[in-house]
Structures are given as structure tokens and as C-alpha cells.
């Protein structure tokens, strides 16, 4: 923790504070001004032009009774659960890399993980869209080739899902019931490079003596993971968790690219961010979209607070 300094000392070289002014200016213009503008406009009936009418809390009261908005929060909650599950492969991958004996091999795997990060996110999304293509996509071809589609059709007939048909390709993004499973499948095998690198950094800070002591006690590989590695990277897991919740709540690029601005058939893929986008750029209700943004902000703030308060890491 930084030591407190006296006022005299802090102001002795006051000219140096001017060096941070450009950064403050940019942060103000590009981060705080848009946010402030959104707060301001959320109290207006505003369609993006010059004209706007002050309507007080009307946008917020409308949002409270907006069934699409609240069902989109339901969808995003499911996606958060999906993403929690998707954290596991990244943790396992980090542990596996960490346990490699050869530094060279560790370095090689780290590079292999980082290289795909060069591909722009949008390109990855388009690749996944093609992956789900019912007629040419990889997924349906793999299911056809391996015969798994027949299994799915039999399961469908048994459970009465009405989504897998023997004589038609699977419409992963055109059947409402398959949209959430598709969003779950997205990113398979769910080894996010950033997550792995964060966990790896945590793992590498574990002292060698801890492992040596564990080996003397005859601890096996799984117990090592459970009692040493996992508890000692919980700080990183918590950081990941915060980023994941914030990211999932505010993100809508995936849904927009895969499903369009209406959230796909049945609106099953609608998330709050996408609804905000839809209201702003499709319906032209910019004031209402700002109000949705504010509600989203409150949710993110609340969840982050709860996470920081209750997800504790005891070392």
C-alpha cells in the first residue's frame, strides 16, 4: 500500500501534474462524456436528432414494464451460467501447460494460444456463423458424417423436441429452441487465450517449495490441482469472473452477428445490449435506449459489488 505523503510534498513539483492532463482529457472526452450524455438523454424522448423532449422518468417506467427487456435479462442469465461452465477448460488448460516439464514446450503452447488472438473478433464470429450454416456448415457435416445426427433425431422423437428432423438439415440459428444451445456451443472448446494466460500467471507465482512439500506428502496430480493450484489461483478466477459477468451482460456482438438485430427467431437470443441497440438504431428510440443502458449499468455495478463483497479469496 502506498504511504501517505504531506500536502507540501505533493504540491512541491505541481507542474508535473500537467503531464496527466492529456490523459484525463481523453478519458473525459471519450469515456465520461458519452456516459454523461447517456444519463442526460435517458430523461428525454429523443430520436437522435436535434429535437428532444424532457419526459422525466418515463423511459425508466416504460423499461420496468418492457417484457422484451426482462426476458432478455433471463437470456443473459443463462449465458452467464454457460460462460461459467466455459471457464473450466481454460483453467484445466492453464494447469496442463503449467505442469509441462519443458520450458520450451510451455513457451510453445503459450505462443500457440496467443496466435489466434491476432484474428479480429468479428472474423471469428463470421467463421462461427458459417460453422452453424445448415447446408454447408462444418457442424452439420460432422454430425452427418459421424452419424450423430441420427442419434439426435431418435432423441428428438423420444423426447418430442421437434427440432431435429431426418430429412432436413439442422437449423441451428433458425429454430428458437436451438438458439441457446448454439450460443453454448459457440467458442468450443472454450479455451480463451486471455483466461489461460491470466490463470497461468497465477500458477507460475506458486512457489516450487509448495509442490515439493506436497510430493513429500504423497499428493497425487488431481489432489495437487484441488488443494494447491485451484485455491492459489482464486484471485485470478475472481478477476475472470468479474470480467466475464461484465462482458456477458454488456456484450451483444455475438448475437447481432449470428442472429441479427431481432435476436433471431422467437427473439430467443435477445440480450439487454442487443435490445438497447435495436431500440436505438432500428426503432430510433435513442432516449429509451439510453435508459436501457442505465439499467444495464446498474445491474453490472450491482453484480460486480456483490462479487467483490462475497466472492472472497482466503489464502
Amino acid at each position, binding site marked *: 500500500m502506498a504511504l501517505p505523503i504531506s500536502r507540501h510534498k505533493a504540491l512541491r513539483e505541481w507542474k508535473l501534474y500537467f503531464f496527466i492532463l492529456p490523459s484525463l482529457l481523453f478519458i473525459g472526452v471519450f469515456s465520461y462524456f458519452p456516459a454523461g450524455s447517456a444519463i442526460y438523454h435517458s430523461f428525454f*424522448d429523443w430520436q437522435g436528432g436535434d429535437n428532444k423532449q424532457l419526459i422525466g422518468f418515463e423511459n425508466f417506467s416504460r423499461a420496468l414494464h418492457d417484457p422484451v427487456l426482462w426476458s432478455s435479462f433471463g437470456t443473459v442469465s443463462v449465458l452467464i451460467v454457460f460462460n461459467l461452465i466455459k471457464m473450466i477448460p481454460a483453467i484445466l488448460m492453464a494447469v496442463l501447460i503449467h505442469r509441462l516439464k519443458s520450458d520450451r514446450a510451455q513457451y510453445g503452447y503459450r505462443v500457440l494460444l496467443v496466435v489466434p488472438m491476432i484474428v479480429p473478433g468479428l472474423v471469428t464470429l463470421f467463421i462461427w456463423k458459417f460453422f452453424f*450454416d445448415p447446408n454447408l456448415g462444418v457442424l452439420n457435416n460432422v454430425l452427418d458424417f459421424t452419424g450423430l445426427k441420427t442419434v439426435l433425431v431418435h432423441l428428438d422423437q423420444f423426447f418430442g423436441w421437434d427440432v431435429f*428432423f431426418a430429412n432436413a438439415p439442422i437449423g441451428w440459428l*433458425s429454430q428458437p429452441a436451438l438458439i441457446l444451445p448454439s450460443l453454448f456451443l459457440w467458442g468450443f472448446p472454450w479455451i480463451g487465450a486471455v483466461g489461460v494466460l491470466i490463470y497461468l500467471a497465477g500458477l507460475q507465482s506458486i512457489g516450487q517449495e509448495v509442490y515439493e512439500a506436497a510430493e513429500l506428502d504423497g499428493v497425487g496430480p488431481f489432489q495437487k490441482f484441488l488443494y494447491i493450484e485451484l485455491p492459489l489461483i482464486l484471485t485470478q478466477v475472481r478477476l475472470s469472473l468479474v470480467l466475464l459477468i461484465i462482458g456477458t451482460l454488456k456484450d451483444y456482438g455475438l448475437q447481432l452477428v449470428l442472429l441479427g438485430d*431481432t435476436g433471431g427467431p422467437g427473439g430467443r437470443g435477445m440480450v439487454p445490449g442487443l435490445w438497447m441497440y*435495436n431500440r436505438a438504431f*432500428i426503432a*430510433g*428510440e435513442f432516449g429509451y435506449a439510453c435508459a436501457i443502458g442505465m439499467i444495464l449499468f446498474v445491474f453490472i455495478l450491482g453484480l460486480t459489488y456483490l462479487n467483490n463483497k462475497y466472492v472472497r479469496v482466503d489464502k
Partner: protein
Amino acid sequence: MKRAPLSSIVPYLVLGLVFAWSCWHVASIRRVAVDTDKVTLRIGHWMLHAGMRESFDLAITDYQKLHPDVSIEQIPVPIRSYAMWLRTRLVGETAPDITGLSAVGEEIAGRYYLPLDAYASQPNPYNAGTPLEGVPWRDTFVDGLESVRNLLGPVSGELYGVNLQINTLRLYFNRNLLRAVTGSDAPPVTFAELRALGDQIAAYNARTGTKLVPIASCGPYSRYLFNTLVPSQTQRFAVESSPSLNLSVSPQDMATAFLRGEWTYATPAFRSGLELMREVTSLMPPGFSQLERDDALFAYLQQQAVMFYAGSWDYGVLVRDGPFPTGVTSLPLPDRDDPKYGRFVLGPISEVAGSPEAILGITRTSRHPEVALDFLRFLSCRSVATTFSRESHRISSVVGTPPPPDAPGLAPVLNGEVNGFGIDFTYLAGGNTNRAFQNNLHRALGPKGDLDDFIKAVESTMPENLRRDLAQAALGQQREIRRLDSQLAFALTRSDPKPGEWSRLAEAQSIRQQERLPLVQEFFP
């Protein structure tokens, strides 16, 4: 002191060199733009389709030959980001002198674009020596620029742009595949023949093991297809029930009629339209609604589909990239003799209304508006229009310009009956009703589609959605009425009064008020 090894200096050296090169590059561009004696014009547009950029380049080269003191730069911007690009450029006052008008309403057009009405009544000097010599510029366009006026200045009646082209929707077909399936490359002419072709393709697939799809399609293009088919079922309704007796039913008219209980989706004509949609879906690839335009185009060019229903703007890429001959025909619609759908049909539909494409306007921030106007006239003269038509394989909006030599079928069909209307509320303000329609469409069109299920689901939320959309429409009208107040005041007090301006604006405002009042009184008292 120990000297740093040479290798540690290399990154700094590279960084310095790159920075120096960037500075030089920026400075050299500035020098061309600023130091030259030439007038520099910029033209920004979204038309990246095959042949369009090349056509603009040819026109620019020809114009620069005529005017050596003018330099023109073309700025093509992908359509996905065009609306955002244009909006930020306009607001930031850095928009090119001429820009394409896309996703621009009257408020934006009026604020950022120069009105062209005064020039539209003067002849286009570049038409000298052609049959259009001496003809007012406005009348050199097939529709007298009415569609652009209605699109960009419906309230004020101002003209903020000119459209170089007209769009039509056409059924393209792969001649080779069609011949392989049917033994002839003649396309289907009637809806019954289109249905039969679907069966023939299925039989061909069973015989040869291929997986040909009759019509390549995708989410957005399926809506074009539905909105061409369904109006055949609402033709009679449009004529008999037009509230303004102008043979058309606007989405707002439809909404108010629904709320008054005058129709539902179970009304025979509307239900028939939905059935037609469902029937034609069987000709499209499964899961079409999740596909995009590029997917459908790819499927057609890869010869996985026999036909492709798309816009005239796509023909250029089909002839450029397709390794097979492509034919063009109109989509066969049910005729009056059709046993299932004929009872609602008046007859073949006229495309005279057309839809304007390549609308260009002059921004108010242009430093050389007179040169921009001159170039706009040049772009819309007969000879340049002919070049555009030939190079881009599109339909020109200039009177007498021949259609692309290889695709006369792209030209609009001018004879026929009045068109009906779509039933999905695409153009109703707010978009809530359209979203509910699109979100429930899978109930009607899916593998186990059920029209009753669709109707029940859509209509359960329709009154609420329609009221919300109508409220949005009424609010928009109120804004337009208010905006006209300031224009009226300006027209009264300006030092150089324009003849008829005040009365035109007052009339527009009065019409808007007459449209709005009954809506507000009935639904939002």
C-alpha cells in the same frame, strides 16, 4: 560506460523510420490536396457492387478531361458501416461534397443537404445534342424525381438528391442447371410452373444424388421474396379498402384498420398471403432465415441452387463471378386462374413506382457546391447514364437510357395492375409489430409450421405493439409539423422569397395535421 548493443537500437530505428515515413506520407497527401490549383471534389457512397466503382471512375475521368481544373476523389464505404460513417461525417462537417443518401430522413436531409428544387427546373447542359436537350433536369428522370422527393422530403416537398438508378427485384436462373433439370433453359412463367419446377428439381436430386435447391435465399432476401408474393393477395384489398382512395394502403392505415377490427391475419386475403409465403418456403434452402446475402449469393454461384431471387444490383456480380450463363426473369406470381390464390389477384403487377437507387445529394458543407452540382448533372446526363448502365449492369433512371445490353429483363415492367401491400409492417415506425411478426414467423414456416399457431402468437401482442408503433408515428408527425413552423416563418421573412414556397409548406403542414389529428383523437385521446 558500456555501449548498448546494436540489436537494442534496431527497434527504435524501425519505429523512427516508420514514423518519418508516415509524416512524409501525410504531408505529401496534404500537398496534393492543398497546394494544387485544382478544385478538389469528393464523392462518398456505399455502392461497392460489381461495376459501380468502375463506372464512377470512368465518369470521373471523363469529367476531369472536360474540366482539367477539377480533381475528383471517390470514397467507397461498405454498406454495413455507411449509415454510421455518413452520420458522423455530416455532424462533424467533414462529409464529402457529394454523398450517397442512405438511411437519411427528412430532418437530416434538410439540415445537411442543399435543396435542388431551383436547379431541377433548369435543363441539364450535359444533355446537349441528345433528345433530352432543353428538357428540365427533373423531367430527364423517368419518374420526374418524385420517388426521391417522397423519400427525402415528404413533408416539405423539397428535393435533396437525384437518383441515378432504379432497383427492380428479379429471379435469376442458372441456364445450365435449368437445362439439366428440365431439358430446356426457359424459366418458369407462371406460379404453377414455378411449383412444378420445384418438383422437377426434387426428382432430379433423387435421380442423381445431388442436393440442388430451387431458390437460393437468405433472411433479408426472403423478405424481398415474401413482399413480392404477398401483395398479389392484397391487391383487391388495396383497391377496395384504400382509406385515402388512392389505391394504396399505408402501414399506418393497416394498423388503424386492425385496431378497429377491420381485418386480422385470419381474414381470407391475409391468410392466403401467409399460405403463399409458406408454400414458397419449400423452394428455399432449409434454415434460410439464418443466412445472409453473401451466403445466398455463394450458394448460387457455387451452383448449389438453380435460381436466386435478388435485386437488380446483384446482377453485375452474377455475370462477373458466375462460371455459367445467368438468365433474368420476373418472379412468377399467382394469376387470376390460379385455383388456390387466384381469387384475390387483380392481374400482373406494374413496377412503375420503382424504387430509387444511387441517390446522391450535395452537402451544405461543400466548399464548391456549384462544381458539385455540375458534376451531379454530368453523372445524370444520358451519355454517362448509358455508360453506368453498361458497366454496372443496372437500370438507369434517366429517360431513354437503354437497359444493360445483356439483361433487358432487369427493366421495370410498366404495364399492369396496382400493387397490393406487404403484411409484415416493415415500414411502420417503431418496429415493434414487425419484430413480433418476424420473431414468430418460424411458427408458420418451420418444418412443422402451423398458420393458426403463428396467427395466435402474433395477434396476442399485436394491439399493444401497434399502439406503441402508432404512438411513435404520431410523435414523428408532431415533430414534422413543429419543424415546418420554423420553415414557414423563414419563408415569410426571407429577403429573397421563393415563389410558392410558403403556400407549399403551409399546405404540407395542413395535410400532416389532418393525417395526425384523427389518429390521435381515436387512439390517444
